[in-house]
């Protein structure tokens, strides 16, 4: 396969080596989408493409938070449970307690952010492994969901209905749900934060070398708390979008979503050890997963488990790619200059 990397190598401007995984993911997205378009009728339309955003809005938002965390070299396993908890809180707040929807959403976002910040504090202040801390957070949030209700609660609320049933009309008769619009705004904000603010640069520095970041006088501990708070916020927002998408809260929603988010981030080219990667890559990663799911639903004869198989193969491929790039960078560095 002639990858984007090959094309770039011929271009007069030598590309930044770390952009390569993002271009590979973009190439993969175009490739899978073209395969779908060739094989199935009605696949290669703008609306099918827009549906990718509509059907995966919550995962895009969750993946944003996960990207921040993974860029610092951490991991957040609690996101799926926090998505479910947020959906539950939305359903209970609007439909059982009859509170105004904006107030409920604000409360949900605060809970998610606070939950993430608390985990970040544990990780920083007590030097607990992120894996363990967020695993505990995952159990905790899921347990709270099931305590609130063991059954699905449907949302009957004017605001939620209005937002869910209407959408942004685009030229050519296409449409984009407000959930997807929210996700795209979140992506834009996140890219800005990572690229043009001190917080964003500190995230990269901490991921590159926490020890160095500290010795350079950067607030390494504070940055780590902030990324988990961001991830908590994104999970809560993802939960709200998920509630909009399903118009219900369910304690068993989003089981395993943390793994989908991690997969999307890794396929998007972010290195699990931190310090290297781009947010746009994670978005492309989510879209690649989305295209695979869409292809399977268009086909109708393939088992949905093929999605998992495809994700597995892609993950292996991308981790190998990162290794290769990393190894070449190392050998260049050790070569005398």
């Amino acid at each position: 396969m002639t990858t984007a990397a090959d094309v770039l190598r011929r271009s007069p401007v030598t590309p930044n080596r770390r952009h390569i995984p993002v271009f590979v993911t973009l190439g993969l997205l175009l490739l899978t989408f073209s395969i779908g378009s060739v094989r199935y009728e009605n696949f290669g339309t703008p609306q099918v493409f827009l549906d990718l955003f509509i059907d995966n809005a919550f995962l895009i938002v969750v993946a944003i938070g996960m990207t921040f965390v993974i860029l610092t070299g951490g991991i957040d396993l609690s996101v799926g449970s926090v998505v479910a908890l947020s959906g539950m809180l939305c359903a209970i707040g609007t439909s059982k307690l009859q509170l105004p929807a904006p107030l409920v959403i604000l409360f949900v976002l605060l809970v998610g952010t606070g939950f993430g910040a608390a985990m970040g504090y544990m990780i920083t202040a007590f030097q607990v492994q992120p894996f363990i801390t967020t695993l505990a957070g995952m159990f905790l949030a899921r347990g709270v969901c099931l305590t609130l209700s063991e059954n699905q609660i449907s949302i009957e609320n004017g605001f939620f209905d209005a937002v869910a049933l209407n959408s942004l009309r685009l030229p050519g008769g296409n449409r984009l749900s407000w959930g997807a619009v929210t996700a795209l705004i979140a992506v834009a904000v996140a890219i800005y934060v990572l690229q043009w603010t001190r917080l964003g640069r500190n995230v990269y520095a901490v991921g590159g070398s926490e020890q160095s970041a500290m010795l350079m006088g950067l607030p390494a501990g504070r940055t780590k708390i902030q990324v988990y708070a961001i991830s908590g916020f994104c999970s809560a927002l993802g939960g709200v979008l998920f509630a909009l998408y399903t118009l219900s809260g369910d304690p068993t929603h989003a089981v395993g979503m943390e793994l989908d988010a991690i997969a999307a981030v890794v396929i998007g080219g972010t290195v699990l050890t931190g310090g290297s990667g781009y947010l746009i890559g994670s978005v492309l990663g989510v879209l690649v997963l989305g295209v695979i799911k869409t292809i399977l639903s268009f086909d109708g004869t393939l088992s949905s488990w093929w999605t998992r198989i495809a994700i597995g193969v892609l993950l292996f491929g991308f981790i190998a790619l990162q290794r290769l790039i990393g190894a070449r960078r190392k050998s260049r560095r050790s070569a005398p200059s």
Partner: protein
Amino acid sequence: MAAPVLEMEGISKGFPGVQALQDVSFRLFPGEVHGLMGENGAGKSTLIKVLTGVHTADAGLVTIDDVDTLIRGPLHAQRLGISTVYQEVNLCPNLSVAENIFIGREPRRFGRIDWKQINRRATELLARLGLDLDVTAQLGSCSLAVQQLIAIVRAVDLKAKVLILDEPTSSLDRGEVARLFSVMRRLKADGVAILFVSHFLEQIYEICDRVTVLRNGGLVGEYPIGELSRLDLVAKMTGQELTALEELDEASPDVVKGERLLALEGVGRTGAIDPVDLDLHAGEVVGFAGLLGSGRSELARLIFGADSADTGVIRTGGGPVALKGPRAAIDQGIAFCPEDRKGDGLIMDLTVEENIILALQVSRGWLKPLSQRKREELVGSYIKALRIHPPHPYALVKNLSGGNQQKVLLARWLITRPKLLILDEPTRGIDIGAKTEIQKLVVSLAGDGMGVVFISAELEEVLRISHKIEVLRDRRLVAELDNDGTLTPEHILQTIANGAADS
């Protein structure tokens, strides 16, 4: 002379069991390069850590620009104008060159980071120090030397009045050192006070205006470099007062030189040790003398195959051999007790018996385990022979004293009946009694026909038991001296100080 920018007075700092600094005073003037000299454990790093706020002194005063100051931490030290560049570059390899210089204090426009200005200013700063680099390149893609210079640029742009360079040259080649020195001279001309730590005497003499010498946590003195000969400097660092060395016991053991075990022909490794020619014979104790960083351990590691040589041939009695790794060396009958017995040698949580039996078991292969009785017999005999205390095979090694740990390590290798035994600082940090026992043991092993390489920073010790002394300096073998009974530590010191006899 102008007023000192930094003054430390009566600094003491103790850690549990060690007095790292005892009443040390130190002055640093603007526009000077000041060398901080001392052997390992002299207290250099502790002094630097007090200066950078990593440690707080137990007693003493730090004055910066005539103001009493308590340095609260690395960040606070930076704000006070004290910047440090460590041996290992503490920058982020995944960020660009320019970003590494500016991160944490990026110029901003309308709240967002102004990348154009960062890149422009980084280019200017580097150009001022004579560096022409692509500032948008990733730091990790630059050589270590350039990374070090970038760390200095960052430090200096933090408005540093005092710049601490902690062994910045240890991994640089000659050209890179020259570049670093030219940068240092420019900074010096700008009035920056530079504290420079290096193990390389030549570099100290090339760049420093004054030196402060520490030994065993105490201050030896502060000297203008022009008034201190190399010989005096080495003597002050090692504490070998030349007059006191007269009365050394002259009991050089008889040489019973046997067959040639190993011949090194031009064996070297870039960045570790220049090519060396060396013969090692059975029944002979060869001492390696030199300061820390002189290449003495590096040479030993090449002989054992722990590092692989870039150049040269190693021959045994049977012809050239490729020592591709320790396993190959062990097969050739070479044994190596490393300097860092905790890190490289012993496994602290295992018992004496398990540690002793380890090498023998490895060379037998795991499929042929030793019987319990055989193990007890073997281990018991070595515990007795080396007088390991407590004489208990099931004691945990971590509970033994340093000297006894060293004996366990020795026993491990003796049990494999090596033809050549390499001992790297076998007596460091152990008490006099155990030291003498190990020295006696080495002499008697050689008497039994074993070849021994003995590495020690203590010249007296090397002289007492070696037949032949290889003197190393600045990663080169500079002289080979026969210990014919007339050799004194002064000779060796002189050789270390002057380099080869002819220079």
